[in-house]
């Protein structure tokens, strides 16, 4: 029983890291652009399929590095051409736009790569189980977690120590004053959007090695990511990280005792957090006004 709990907790932590990676990207975009990006799962799919197409030319490692950057470039263009047109408008516009984008990406993927799932291969040394007792914990799972941790650590360092990062954090609460201090907030928003999409692309590349490719593979990650943001508190990336890990572990542990409730548990956690602390665990006050 202890083994099973431990196994599920670890597994939940791995899934939670994924939620966090997606949610932090969403959160970055929400904080600076006030856009809830329903197409975020779509960008995950783009990242995954790009790495699939690049692997024959660049190999596993090359695709792992290049695909997220290409996804980010696509995100940058989408922001420049479409997303920025809805800034400052009623939130309905951005919801409609990103919802539509999500459908376009999903069907575009079907057109280009086909509707059926595709198998992916990962280097042999990563696919071996690390332990025969916890047979599900393969080297690849640990590898995914290591990459997720690295990506989030790099992002947090950028946000903390670079001027651009400091400006992004300043803009989270008061973008108007950032502009009044001479900062080109159009560029800042585009770059910030691209970084959020980079994280989605990276999540896609990593997920494809574990789950294989399907045009709808992003759908299952989107809702938990929103919940991670709400639980952690809108406006706080630390909170989003915490929220993602929390609901991942909670879902993993619930699967031991009551498997059919493992999806419902994250909604229960969200409801409790909203009742006790409406701005989320680490949320900034006044973010959603």
């Amino acid at each position, binding site marked *: 029983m202890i083994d099973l709990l431990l196994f599920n907790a670890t597994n939940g932590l791995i899934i939670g890291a994924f939620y966090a990676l997606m949610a932090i990207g969403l959160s970055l975009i929400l904080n600076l652009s006030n856009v809830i990006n329903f197409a975020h799962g779509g960008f995950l799919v783009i990242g995954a399929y790009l790495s699939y197409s690049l692997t024959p030319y660049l190999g596993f490692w090359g695709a792992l590095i290049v695909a997220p950057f290409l996804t980010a470039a696509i995100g940058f263009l989408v922001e420049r051409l479409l997303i920025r047109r809805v800034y400052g408008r009623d939130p309905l516009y951005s919801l409609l736009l990103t919802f539509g984008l999500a459908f376009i990406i999903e069907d575009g993927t079907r057109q280009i790569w086909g509707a059926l799932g595709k198998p992916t291969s990962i280097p042999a040394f990563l696919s071996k189980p690390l332990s025969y007792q916890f047979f599900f914990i393969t080297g690849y799972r640990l590898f995914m977690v290591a990459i997720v941790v690295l990506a989030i650590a790099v992002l947090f360092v950028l946000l903390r120590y670079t001027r651009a990062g*400091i*400006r992004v*954090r300043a803009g*989270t*609460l*008061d973008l108007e004053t950032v502009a*009044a*201090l*001479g900062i080109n907030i159009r560029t800042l928003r585009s770059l910030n959007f691209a970084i959020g999409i980079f994280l989605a692309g990276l999540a896609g590349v990593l997920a494809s090695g574990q789950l294989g490719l399907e045009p709808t593979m992003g759908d299952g990650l989107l809702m938990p990511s929103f919940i991670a943001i709400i639980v952690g508190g809108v406006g706080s990336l630390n909170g989003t990280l915490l929220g993602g890990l929390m609901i991942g572990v909670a879902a993993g542990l619930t699967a031991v005792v009551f498997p059919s409730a493992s999806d419902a548990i994250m909604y229960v956690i969200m409801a409790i957090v909203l009742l006790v602390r409406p701005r989320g665990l680490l949320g900034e006050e006044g973010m959603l006004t």
Partner: protein
Amino acid sequence: MTAALVAEGLHTYYGKSHILHGVGLEVAEGKITALLGRNGAGKTTTLRSLMGLTPPREGRVTIFGTDTVNWPTYRVAALGVGYVPEGRRIFPNLTVDENLKVPLERTGAWTSERIYQLFPRLAERKTNRGRQLSGGEQEMLSIGRALLLNPKLLILDEPSQGLAPLIVRDVFRIVAQMRSEGISVLLVEQNARVSLEIADYAYVIDDGAMVYSGPAKELAADEARVQSLAGVSVEEWTMS
């Protein structure tokens, strides 16, 4: 005398309400120009129009000889316009040091070291977050932040608001010092008496239109007008 800023015939609206009715003003280079008026007279709206934060529907704004109407705010600021907004608008989630890293790095004499020399109090609070500062410290940080842009024109919106008289005196001394640094200043204030002590020229706005303009000394001598500007409460403390 050349002008740092000239505004003519500004008409500005918030939604459907017409706030400014053809406001015009001029900020002379190297001087302090005060824009006075009661609460709700249109002072902040005038500044927001100049900065492009609430763009005017009609009128012209020329800053250092460049027509800036319809420019986005960041381009206006990047011309060398430092803006100290109403309520200071410190970034509450950033430390003092980080607040000073937000502004655009225009080349010039101002560095964060110099800001810390000018406001030693801020140096002591470098690692404190904006939300932990007192009103006076926030005002200093807001001015310091605007100075780091190395502005040629400094626009201050009610710097004395909510501050204790002693601190107001400090803040105004700094503003007067900026003039000797060669910075042109546009000072918006409700506190007419103290403003007129440091200002060279003054405008009075009421109901969204200019009702007076003249040398600050002349306005200061017009006791009745100064009294009426102070509104209901007579301000009994001065700069001395």
